[in-house]
């Protein structure tokens, strides 16, 4: 006869405990009650759902089929009203009765709603469950004024989520310091600056006295008498354990349901895990100790009583991309014998503070640089004598052998706090599935798929554990904004950043330089398909005036001649321009174009107007040209119409930016007269087919292009070109030519992800290309409508004669 195990609570702690029980031999018939109407989901990721980075489906941990395959009765949307310990049964709100032999209370916690007059008004929300999140999402719209009451972890994450949705968000906090329970005043100050730089207003210390508004909330009135207008209020003032059920049942309850080291309550048939419990006077809210509780209880309840829960020191990490905050342990420096070691770099926004006593680490505050979190946590937990490390304690040297560094992390340590993945899980998954890439690890364990702060550590683990680790080559953009291109693309997309300034203010040193600014300009343009905030100051001069700067500061002008085909009319206009502006040199380029050299900046708009031709983009990291041979139009050997195909190819891709210059060629037969096989992209005509070749070069490097695909029709060849072109745009590093890109990724992978990709994926690439194309325009139109009135001109001084003034007036100089 099976024993009835009833679990009240379908959250992360309860279900993870059940998962542990299932891994062991047991004799249970399991029923799980959950008062939320959803299957088990990852509550930690709700702020990402709010921000639109994840969907509700994506944060599901166990879907319905998991309950079914494991024979678990899921009573979803059923709230338990009381426990009858005498008769060993639970009674739900509708009076339904379920008997138990063993009962686990995993009721979690609820949002604490402070007793402020007006909290019952409409549009006052809490942010705790998926339903809360959905309710908020129904209300949010760009421009909505939102006040978040509470400047702790949850409040800040909610604020960021809402702000990414376009709301005007103000965080109101009772204390002098944001996250005051985890940070000191200095750390809080750094955090405040970071949060403000994201565009979130912070008001502190500010005590909310009342919410005003007629039925619907209109704003906050503070104890100081000040007011803040708000259309929506989110209360994130902390959580309270849901211990009511235990209290009513007569269990020993203080702040939470009291459990011993085995997770047993005061009733021998009742156990408790999660945020509703209190262990040695402490309650817990982070996922790592709650999972540990689940493991301990799984042992206890399956008859292997022995494992004990020993508590956990407080630790907290803020999950807002680019705002790295970690705090753990004891952070009150006023204790007897407590020493502090600190480091600050205001311009980088880095602040580290370590608290020590008797040469052991007691606690830490890390802001802006949390690389050493695991080293410190290890020192703290093991009580390592830090005497030999004292000189380098703020920047502990990295182990030269990456294996040693990760070997020091205990298996039970949580690596990915968002998804509760421990080191042991990762190592096991790597062995079980033969994982060799970060992408594979993400797929199998979900580690590093959410906030990204553990990516580096996951890579180290991979490197240490698997001999065949394939590192995704990542180049850090530059020291102004030290992230890889992959990370930057994610940040721009995820955090909905639209301008270079935003990226630099949030993730960089706020200044930028000639290396990162053009690269960021490119990434923004690519990610948003041209729908970004263009900042010309971040572009190289060529892209400000759409011409190529020469050694004497003059410019070269190359009009577009699609496919290298021109007309007598165009040639006459070019000749007239050369005469009129006394162009010092007229030259035929290697790309079948005509170059007018030595034009003054101020003359550019007039030259363009007189030419009456579009920009040849010969000055930028973008689509340069398509060089063609005459093909079937005239050539007696031609087997394909290369000029027509070339002109069409150029039309489809012109005016778009690329990671580096992008040159193309189309030839009408394998004699290859227009050298298509040494271009970034080439079409080589065959009798009855086209070869599409990519990654060729005949410049600094010489490389024969790789065959991407052979197709029958011109339209197919053009589509294959579009696919490769957009794929290169999206995946190459800035300033990476196609020939390096193709070598780095390998043509096989590129084929699989472009021409042989599933139809839906191909369509997505084509759609994004089409979107970019609709916003791309001929840059020379700015000759008529400049972006600033002085884009091309030299400024004429208002007045030439100086005014003489005494020096005391010039203090501002």
């Amino acid at each position, binding site marked *: 006869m099976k024993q009835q195990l009833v679990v009240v609570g379908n959250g992360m702690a309860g279900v993870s405990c059940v998962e542990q029980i299932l891994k062991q031999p047991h004799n249970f018939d399991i029923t799980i009650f959950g008062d939320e109407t959803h299957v088990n989901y990852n509550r930690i990721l709700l702020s990402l759902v709010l921000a639109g980075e994840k969907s509700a489906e994506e944060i599901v941990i166990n879907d319905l089929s998991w309950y079914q395959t494991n024979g678990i009765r899921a009573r979803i949307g059923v709230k338990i009203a009381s426990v009858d310990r005498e008769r060993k049964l639970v009674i739900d709100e509708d009076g339904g009765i379920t008997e138990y032999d063993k009962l686990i209370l995993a009721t979690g916690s609820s949002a604490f709603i402070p007793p402020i007059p007006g909290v019952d008004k409409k549009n006052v929300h809490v942010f705790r469950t998926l339903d809360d999140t959905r309710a908020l999402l129904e209300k949010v719209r760009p421009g909505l004024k939102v006040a978040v009451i509470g400047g702790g972890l949850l409040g800040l994450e909610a604020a960021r989520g809402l702000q990414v949705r376009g709301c005007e968000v103000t965080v109101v906090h009772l204390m002098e310091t944001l996250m005051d329970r985890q940070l000191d005043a200095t750390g809080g100050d750094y955090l405040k600056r970071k949060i403000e730089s994201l565009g979130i207003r912070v008001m502190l210390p500010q005590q909310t006295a009342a919410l005003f508004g007629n039925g619907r909330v209109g704003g906050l009135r503070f104890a100081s008498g000040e007011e803040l207008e708000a259309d929506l209020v989110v209360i994130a003032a902390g959580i309270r354990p849901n211990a009511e059920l235990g209290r009513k049942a007569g269990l020993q309850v203080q702040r939470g349901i009291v459990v011993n080291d085995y997770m047993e309550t005061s009733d021998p048939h009742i156990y408790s895990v999660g945020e509703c419990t209190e262990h040695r006077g402490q309650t817990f809210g982070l996922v790592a100790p709650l999972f540990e509780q689940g493991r301990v209880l799984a042992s206890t309840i399956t008859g292997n009583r022995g494992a004990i829960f020993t508590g956990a020191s407080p630790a907290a990490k803020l999950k807002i991309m680019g705002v790295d905050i970690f705090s753990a342990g004891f952070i009150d420096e006023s204790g007897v014998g407590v020493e502090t070691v600190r480091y600050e770099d205001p311009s980088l926004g880095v602040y580290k503070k370590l608290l020590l006593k008797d040469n052991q680490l007691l606690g830490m505050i890390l802001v802006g640089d949390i690389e050493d979190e695991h080293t410190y946590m290890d020192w703290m937990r093991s009580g390592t004598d830090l005497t030999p490390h004292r000189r380098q304690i703020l920047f502990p040297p990295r182990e030269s052998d990456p294996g040693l560094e990760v070997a020091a992390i205990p298996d039970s340590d949580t690596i990915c706090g968002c998804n509760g993945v421990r080191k042991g899980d990762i190592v096991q998954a790597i062995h079980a599935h033969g994982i060799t890439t970060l992408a594979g690890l993400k797929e199998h364990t979900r580690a590093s798929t959410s906030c990204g702060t553990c990516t580096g550590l996951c890579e180290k683990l991979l490197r240490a554990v698997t001999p065949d680790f394939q590192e995704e080559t990542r180049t850090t953009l530059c020291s*102004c904004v030290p992230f890889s291109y992959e990370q930057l693309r994610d940040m721009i997309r995820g955090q909905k950043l639209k301008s270079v300034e935003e990226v630099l203010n949030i993730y960089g040193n706020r*200044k*930028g*330089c*000639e290396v990162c*600014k*053009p690269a960021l300009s490119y990434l923004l343009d690519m990610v948003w398909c041209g729908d970004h905030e263009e*900042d*010309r*100051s*971040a*572009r*190289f*001069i060529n892209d*400000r005036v759409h011409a190529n*700067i020469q*050694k*004497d*500061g003059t410019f070269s002008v190359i009009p577009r001649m699609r496919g290298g085909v021109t007309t007598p009319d165009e040639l006459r206009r070019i000749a007239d321009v050369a005469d009129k502006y006394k162009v010092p040199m007229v030259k035929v380029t290697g790309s079948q174009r005509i170059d007018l050299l030595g034009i003054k900046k101020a003359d550019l708009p007039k030259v363009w107007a007189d030419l009456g031709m579009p920009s040849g983009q010969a000055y930028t990291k973008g689509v340069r040209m398509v060089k063609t041979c005459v093909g079937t139009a005239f050539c007696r050997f031609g087997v394909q119409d290369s000029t027509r195909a070339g002109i069409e190819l150029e039309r489809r891709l012109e005016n778009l930016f690329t990671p580096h210059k992008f040159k193309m060629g189309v030839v009408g037969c394998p004699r290859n007269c227009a050298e298509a096989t040494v271009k970034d992209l080439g079409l080589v005509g065959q009798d009855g087919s086209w070869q599409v070749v990519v990654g060729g070069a005949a410049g600094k490097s010489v490389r024969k292009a790789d065959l991407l695909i052979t197709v029958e029709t011109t339209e197919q060849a053009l589509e294959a070109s579009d696919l490769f072109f957009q794929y290169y745009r999206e995946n190459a590093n800035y300033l990476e030519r196609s020939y390096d890109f193709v070598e780095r990724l390998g043509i096989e992978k590129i084929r699989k992800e472009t021409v042989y990709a599933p139809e839906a994926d191909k369509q997505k690439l084509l759609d994004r290309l089409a979107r970019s194309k609709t916003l791309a325009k001929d840059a020379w139109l700015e000759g008529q409508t400049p972006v*600033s*009135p*002085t884009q091309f001109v*030299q*400024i*004429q*001084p*208002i*007045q*030439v*004669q*100086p*005014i*003489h*003034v*005494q*020096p005391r*007036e*010039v203090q*501002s*100089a």
Partner: protein
Amino acid sequence: MTNVREWTRITNVENIPSREGRTVTVDGVEIAIFHLENRCLTIENKCPHKGGPLCDGIVSGTTVVCPLHGRRFDLESGMAVRASEPSCVATFPTRVEDGIIFVDLAGVRKDQEEAAT
């Protein structure tokens, strides 16, 4: 340094987009005025390396990078930033008042007077 400033009224500050530079020719000398966050700074528009137009460079903080060969100069001091490329450009006192940029060009005129004598 002269005791008296010779402020010349140049242009409306809005004529120079943020973090960009523009040139003005005064008495045959080209100066480059840069619009930084809350102020303007002015240097000679000629890189001492190969004469590059510094006004066309990318601004990074209070430095500008020559568009021709990447020499970097501090806009406040005029000094080259990299010690390996010792050189400097002339700087001119600049202030913004009521949205108008004023530059003290006494330096330019003095140089010319000296050159003439």
